[in-house]
């Protein structure tokens, strides 16, 4: 249930830590796993105290940037075709560019397998684990 003003964790190394949803694309309902959304970067990730001076290299996005993102985890439980239900403890997303490629190169954190059915296999292959 990701909609306007929802705060999500960003789990890639693009430099964003917390982002806020400002729009759900191609849908009139709240977004769930595999949906594309528009986000504003609210908090940047700092890669250690030393790298703060060269954060321009590490962080591909800055605070206040408007980006596209794909939801990879949702608190709202989702039902699989076989009847089992999966839910996560947080809402998380991965930043992507306009053409749909992930901005970051690494991901930390488990993602939902529903991404495969929605043509996000690239994100799924980057993820360390999927449920």
């Amino acid at each position, binding site marked *: 249930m990701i909609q306007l003003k929802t705060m999500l964790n960003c789990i890639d190394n693009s430099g964003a830590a917390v982002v806020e949803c400002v729009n759900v694309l191609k849908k009139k309902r709240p977004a769930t796993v595999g949906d594309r959304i528009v986000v504003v970067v609210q908090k940047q990730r700092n890669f250690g105290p030393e790298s703060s001076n060269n954060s321009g290299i590490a962080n591909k996005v800055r605070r206040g940037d408007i980006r596209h993102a794909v939801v990879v985890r949702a608190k709202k439980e989702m039902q699989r075709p076989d*009847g089992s239900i999966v*839910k996560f*403890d947080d809402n998380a997303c991965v930043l992507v560019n306009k053409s749909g490629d992930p901005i970051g190169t690494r991901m930390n*954190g*488990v993602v939902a397998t529903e991404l495969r059915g929605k043509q996000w296999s690239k994100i799924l292959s980057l993820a*360390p684990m999927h*449920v």
Partner: protein
Amino acid sequence: MATFSPILRQLGCLRSIAKPQSLVSSQIARRSLTTVYTPKQEPVPLPSKLPKSFLSQIPPRQQPTNGRKKLKVYPAPPSSRTVCKDPVAAVTESQLTALDPTGERKALFDYRRNPRSVKVGDILRVTFKNGDPFSGVCLSIRLRGIDTTFLLRNELTRVGVEMWVKVFSPNVESVEIVQRTEKRKRRARLYYMRQPRHDMRSVENIVSNYLRQKSALSGQRGQGGRGRGQKRRR
């Protein structure tokens, strides 16, 4: 001006009193004259042998059918209750025989009757048909016939993940008890374990430990894992 108005009013009032008095007296006079009682006229009965062509001319109330069409009454359809008294139970039964012919799965989760069944708080490991396993603490068992499910909770990469699994789903290949709960839980649903204070965090260590021990015993005792799980406690 103010002095004249009451006089005018009085005159108008007198006139109005004078007028209806004559009317009232005439009414009383008329009433006193009507003293003869005339009985209500008997309705003329219709001729018994009226040709059918005349029936349409008389009002519908006086027609022999009393203006109503005769409705055809159909008998009630045969009740399906006599055929099958409890169809839901019958469907459940047939589904259970198809999906769980040995009754093993049912016994594994029937915590009300089977003392050796899965209890809430146990650590379970489920293997699916497509090969990927899922393990976690059992937070609740929902006994609903063929729709029986259990809820597993685990922490993967420091994110809590919960999964409801259908017990009799053909996608579920095996359910193993990795570790029994140390003490019987006094709740049927352990939803409080979602709170950070009571959260068990990751159970991956316990599961991998169990798998190592299982492979050391050449993995032949698939069912024996239950007994060993009981012995091995933290």
